[in-house]
């Protein structure tokens, strides 16, 4: 069995994964087809083999973790249908993105996979695992991916995932000279019949035809791209509005709760002052004064800090919030203080590539220990942030004064 995925679909999965501040998962959509390969060798006249090829066409990202299963790994079919809707019939696998983890299925993933296989009715359901690792100085990052095809006996069976590309583009197949031939018959025949391939301008007719196909395709790509661009802007705008509304609601509920609490305290204090002798106690009276004249906080839009209860709507940070840029980076494998027995530390002199080499984990592992410790949930917002800006094309990079690569503070 083999699998293919286009570079764009692969990049799209990576894009969603890189945007998440925790693990990310979703479903792979596509189809399975059979390929017949013919081989001829000296020992056989000819033999054909049938190879099942999984083609991944698209993916359906899940908005959050545990959206179709619970902490015990029990899959909720109703939630599954709500996510997939009419795309359920196109599911050929699912994927998971983790940071700094080993490339093997966790116990929960195995449990989920088994249930998905039964619920979706796909015996050859595949699982694509992405793992993201970085060097200690965050200059080099690697995204590794493995496609598993778990079956009854082995959960670590791997399939090769290929990303078709152009291959050799050296254009060496063009000929710059003709094979010398002195035969006059040869020359006259190819001149007479070869002329049918060319139009009156001396250009090959096939080239004009294929160029028309290419032109039409490129025009359509351009048009759809414009539509996508507009839809991205609309989506971003409306998502921003939704986030703002959620914050507003959270703030209002918090302020309302605060006011109720203050009122309650005030009521309790008034109720607890029936005896004048209590008032004559200077200590008690000062305490009472403190309670009665507590800080009068105007009902403002100040964001609650260190709130005891988590925000009701846990969404991504708003884009205009400064902390969005300082999104804490998960601890890199190989960074100081991070246990990494199989990886070396980068020392910033160019030899850090060694720290990205890892042991092969393709062997069956009898240890079924739940490796959920590697499953990073939503990170706390109070971690120490990194202040280094990302380098993007067209924008100046933020470098250290002397140009040397330093580990960002907090890593």
């Amino acid at each position, binding site marked *: 069995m083999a699998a293919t995925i*286009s570079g*764009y*679909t692969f990049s*799209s999965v990576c894009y969603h994964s*890189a*945007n998440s*501040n925790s693990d990310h998962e979703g479903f792979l959509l596509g189809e399975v087809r059979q390929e017949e390969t013919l081989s001829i060798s000296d020992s056989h006249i000819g033999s054909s083999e049938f190879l099942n090829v999984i083609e991944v*066409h698209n993916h359906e990202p899940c908005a959050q973790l545990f959206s179709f299963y619970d902490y015990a790994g029990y899959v909720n079919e109703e939630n599954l249908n709500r996510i997939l809707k009419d795309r359920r019939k196109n599911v050929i696998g699912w994927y998971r993105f983790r940071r700094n983890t080993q490339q093997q299925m966790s116990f929960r993933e195995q449990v989920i996979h088994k249930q998905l296989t039964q619920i979706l009715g796909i015996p050859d359901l595949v699982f694509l695992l992405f793992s993201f690792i970085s*060097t200690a*100085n*965050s*200059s080099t990052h690697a*995204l590794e*991916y*493995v496609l598993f095809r778990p079956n009854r006996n082995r959960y670590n069976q*791997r*399939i090769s*995932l290929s*990303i*078709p*590309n*152009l291959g050799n583009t050296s254009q060496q*197949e*063009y000929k710059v*000279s003709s094979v010398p031939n002195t035969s006059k018959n040869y020359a006259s025949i190819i001149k007479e019949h070869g002329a049918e391939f*060319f139009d009156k301008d001396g250009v090959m007719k096939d*080239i004009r035809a*294929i160029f028309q*196909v*290419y032109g039409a*395709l*490129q025009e359509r*790509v*351009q048009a*759809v*791209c414009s539509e996508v*661009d507009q*839809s*991205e802007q*609309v*989506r971003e705008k409306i*998502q921003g*509005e*939704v986030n703002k509304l959620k914050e507003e609601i959270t703030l209002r509920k918090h302020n309302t709760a605060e006011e109720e609490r203050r009122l309650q305290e005030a009521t309790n204090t008034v109720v607890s002052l029936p005896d004048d002798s209590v008032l004559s106690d200077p200590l008690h009276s000062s305490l009472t004064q403190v309670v009665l004249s507590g800080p009068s906080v105007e009902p403002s839009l100040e964001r609650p800090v260190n709130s005891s209860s988590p925000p009701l709507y846990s969404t*991504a940070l708003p*884009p205009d919030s400064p902390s969005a840029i300082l*999104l804490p980076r998960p601890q890199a494998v190989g960074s100081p203080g991070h246990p990494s027995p199989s990886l070396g530390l980068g020392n*910033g002199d160019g030899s850090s*590539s060694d720290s*990205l080499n890892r042991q*092969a984990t393709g062997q069956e592992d009898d240890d079924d220990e739940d490796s959920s410790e590697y499953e990073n949930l939503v990170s706390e917002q109070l971690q120490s942030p990194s202040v*280094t*800006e990302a*380098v993007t094309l*067209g924008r100046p*990079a933020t*470098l250290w004064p002397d*140009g040397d690569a*330093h580990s*960002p503070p907090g890593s």
Partner: protein
Amino acid sequence: MQPSKLDTANSSRVQWDSGDLDQGFVGLIFSCFIEDKHIKTGRVLYQSVQAQKGSEYEWIEIPIHVVPHEAIGNVCLVSAVDLPRFLCQEEQDTYRRIHSLTHLDPITKIHNGSVFTTNLCSQMSAISGPLLQWLEDRLEQNNRNIIEHQKDKEQLTQELASL
């Protein structure tokens, strides 16, 4: 992964093109299509480097972080669509150069024309086709999300009004 001498030399040349050190110029090196066939693991690497002043072949590593962004920007979309255009342009330039050779017999010209056709077909099936497929899927996904967010917005607006 280490930048080659050519990478560093080119980077250094651009960095000091005007004679002044451009501290904001860095090189991003991407290494793709790496596969360890033994363990069937694929890997995509990227690295950020900067040429060192005073030497063409020395370089330092620069930290780089990916900042999350909900929407795909116009710059990225334009770059994605420009790629097949550039590839086609390169192919056309090569073919025109070859086709201008006058000493080629018709069979060789037909061969070269077929090479051009084959290469263009390869570009369409490997690049343009998947690109169009991804764009259509992305558009569909965006439209779905917009409808869902619209419903959320209405519900949240009502909830806010009731508070």
